[in-house]
């Protein structure tokens, strides 16, 4: 499996992501935002950071970058596109996923470990998890408060496209476990064809035992298995 990790000038989790993919046994390379050639990547990852400073709205400017035209094309043709944190915001702004991000309900940057529940395992990114598993995983964002209108939310729920939800330690879905105020506790959603995934928490930061955090590791394993590279 070859992951192309997009580097916008303000990306700052690009190197972390490459490291995590490689530590799981995958291959990863960087794709500069001014490029248009995806160089044969099997999966495009939009990493965390502040793509173009994001002073306007997170992800707003990134969507007009040369690389995003190719990424959108790639997704339209059924390619795998995975947006983490800022990458998720870029996916929303570019219309690859529905909805929008608002400022956290606390009106503060949220940088801590939180809990999410795996809602669906029938995606290339999550089939190595058990449904209902609770993951402890870091978040680091100011605008992670997911919003969509009622119809969109209903559709997402009906099509079982909510992949991760913020929860309490024991998996309970509640306001208490929903620190940024996202509607329906949404932490991650996928596209209709289930091949584009966006999530606010950072699996690449929970992929190393020395950091005391490994719950994100299975995402890379899922991808590798999806491409038939591990049993």
């Amino acid at each position: 499996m070859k992951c192309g990790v997009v580097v916008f000038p303000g990306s700052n989790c690009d190197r972390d992501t490459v490291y995590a993919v490689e530590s799981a046994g995958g291959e990863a390379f960087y794709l500069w935002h001014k490029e248009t050639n995806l160089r044969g990547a099997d999966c495009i990852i939009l990493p965390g950071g502040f793509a173009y400073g994001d002073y306007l709205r997170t992800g707003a400017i990134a969507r007009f970058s040369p690389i995003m035209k190719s990424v959108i094309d790639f997704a339209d043709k059924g390619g795998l596109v995975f947006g983490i944190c800022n990458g998720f915001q870029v996916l929303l702004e570019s219309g690859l996923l529905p909805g929008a991000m608002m400022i956290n309900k606390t009106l503060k940057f949220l940088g801590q470990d939180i809990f999410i529940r795996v809602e669906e395992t029938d995606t290339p990114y999550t089939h190595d998890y058990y449904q209902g598993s609770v993951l402890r995983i870091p978040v680091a964002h100011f605008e992670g408060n997911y919003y969509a209108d009622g119809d969109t939310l209903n559709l997402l729920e009906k099509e079982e496209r909510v992949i991760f939800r913020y929860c309490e330690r024991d998996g309970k879905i509640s306001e208490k476990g929903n620190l940024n105020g996202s509607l329906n506790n949404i932490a991650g959603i996928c596209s209709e064809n289930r091949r584009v995934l966006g999530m606010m928490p950072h699996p690449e930061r929970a992929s190393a035992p020395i950091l005391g955090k490994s719950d994100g590791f299975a995402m890379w394993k899922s991808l590798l298995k999806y491409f038939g590279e591990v049993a």
Partner: protein
Amino acid sequence: MKARVYVSFKDSVLDPQGKAVKNALLSIGYEKVKDVRQGKFFQIEMDDMSEAEAKRQITEMAEKILSNPVIEKFEVIL
């Protein structure tokens, strides 16, 4: 040619920042504050072009970049 674009949340969307400002104002004694909504604005200067053309271009920018139609509305004032 100068114009301003005002962007704010749609009425149906909660405005947590506005609410926080309102509470802050109430708490320091401005009791008559009934509501606060917060938004942003862009002051845009365009090189020589007609007013109509400026308005057209700026409205396009507002739609495409300066606001997110899922949550925001905008107003262009020349």
